């Protein structure tokens, strides 16, 4: 049984705006699924429907085996949620908040204190636990939010843009926590606008744009569809490019269109591990390599191929509609 099963899920607002326009996806138990898309694509709306905070206007979704529309109560018992805005009570201390969350999820009274301390230690907030949450930094609040999502050992964890706005250290801490959760067998549904995050953490990725899924698969498979990684080589002085071609032909696919500024572009299936072999072969042939640059297709390239737009940063191409929350 899949941990999350979504079929033609739809959310339409008054006025006809379809924030989510019929998506299908499946997440297996123990998988980390990355839901990737630009701002306004419908990621948050999808998550809010899956965690029973928003009612779908069409389609079906089951989480941990229960239907989100007809059995929301059963769903809530089995999921942990850390939304985009850390949903905290600023007047309470970290410890008080987690203990309350434990009570709300039915953790037996005798276990509440112990579990709370475990989780607080795990997210690195032991020293700050008696301080009011209002005094916590942004990174600390996110970590507390995560602890609250985990207090009842959920089967499925939903993280909505967990590292947006975080400093690099906090981001790494969170990534390690996700990896650890995967080892423990928790299913993680993660939305993000950062390619690197999806690349690093997800077993499979679903790319959403304007309320529709435009690509789905493992990061490697998706990128392979675009093309092989390639090495852009620049040689010293008056090196013999023809001879270089001869030397390199058995090592990869020489590309017809050489990248601007490079002398030769070589497609290499193995990616970065081919660099050593290529440089050695050229060296043995007496050809001096000036510069080697590995260029790999990214998920942004996948996105661009499917939609004409870009995921990160300013991009020409398909504008994403403003999806109301």
């Amino acid at each position, binding site marked *: 049984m899949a941990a999350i099963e979504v079929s033609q899920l739809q959310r339409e607002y008054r006025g006809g705006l379809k924030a989510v326009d019929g998506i299908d996806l499946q997440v297996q138990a123990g998988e980390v699924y990355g839901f990737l898309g630009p701002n306004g694509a419908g990621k948050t709306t999808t998550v809010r429907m899956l965690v029973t905070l928003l009612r779908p206007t069409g389609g079906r979704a089951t989480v941990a085996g229960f239907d989100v529309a007809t059995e929301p109560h059963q769903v*809530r018992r089995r999921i942990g949620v850390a939304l985009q805005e850390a*949903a905290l009570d600023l007047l309470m201390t970290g410890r008080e908040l987690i203990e309350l969350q434990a009570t709300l999820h039915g953790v037996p009274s005798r276990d509440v204190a112990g579990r709370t301390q475990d989780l607080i230690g795990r997210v690195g907030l032991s020293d700050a636990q008696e301080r009011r949450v209002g005094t916590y930094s942004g990174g600390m609040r996110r970590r507390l939010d995560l602890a609250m999502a985990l207090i009842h050992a959920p089967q499925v964890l939903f993280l909505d843009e967990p590292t947006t706005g975080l400093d690099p250290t906090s981001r790494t801490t969170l990534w390690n926590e996700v990896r650890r959760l995967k080892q423990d067998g928790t299913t993680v549904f993660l939305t993000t606008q950062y390619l690197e995050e999806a690349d690093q953490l997800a077993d499979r990725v679903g790319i959403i744009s304007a309320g529709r899924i435009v690509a789905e698969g493992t990061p490697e498979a998706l990128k392979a569809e675009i093309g092989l990684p390639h090495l852009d080589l620049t040689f010293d002085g008056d090196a013999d490019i023809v001879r270089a071609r001869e030397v390199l032909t058995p090592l990869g696919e020489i590309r017809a269109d050489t990248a601007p500024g490079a002398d030769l572009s070589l497609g290499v299936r193995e990616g970065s591990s081919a660099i050593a072999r290529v440089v050695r072969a050229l060296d043995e042939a007496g050809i001096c390599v000036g510069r080697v640059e590995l260029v790999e297709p990214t998920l942004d390239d996948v996105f661009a191929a499917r939609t004409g737009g870009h995921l990160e940063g300013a991009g020409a191409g398909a504008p994403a509609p403003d999806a109301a929350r």
Partner: protein
Amino acid sequence: MTDPGFSVRVVLALARRALRNALRRPQFLAPLVLFPTLFLAVNVGGLNRTTTLPGFPVVDGFLDFQLAGAMTQSLLLGGVAAGIATALEIEGGYFDRLVASPIPRVAIVLGRLVATGATAVVQVTYFLLLGLLFGASVKGGVPGVLVVYLIGIVAGVGFGAIGQAIALRAQNASTVQGIFPIALVVLFASSAFFPQDLLSSPVDVVARYNPLSYIVDGMRAPIIDGVGSTSVLEGLGAATLVVLAAGGLAVLALRGRLRDA
């Protein structure tokens, strides 16, 4: 999970949280008691001779007459404060977390109502002690005091439910804050501060149908008269009506918000 033990545990935990948070913001608590106290002092200090007016009920002093009005004013403000707290919770996002937890939906409202009831006990106690300190007495004795607490708590919870209903509909704190002056105006248009028979127009007409008149009279009777008076029953009835109506509104508002989400 309709296990009653769990539900009770959740409601108590949320009530504890509401009380703790209220105590952590004393600058919001003080006006609840301070303002009615000042108003009480000025009313008594300036107009205590009005007890000699023909038609004024027999009282030991104007203070005895005014206590119930001051209590009700404080309870009303407490209800608005509970609404503001709920609105801030919605604005801040913590409300979503409660909704996403496996608790009975109604516990979200009940928790705060229990806290409001507990606060009502403190508010009534404060004014009773204040009154005793300055020479008032409760004619109805211990049963009288219990009646005052009973009506006060029921009314306080009712006002809290009104505050929450407004917060759940408006979903922002400034709107709820705007209710403060309206609540005070409604209280003025009642027999809270002066006997109903001696009110001038147009307030006298409104006061006759204002449930606040009955609530205040219900709390006043044990102080100036005794527990046997019919006002007590009417007061209890009015307070219960407010709780039921407001409670219903609050639950409807909660459902509405969850559905429209």
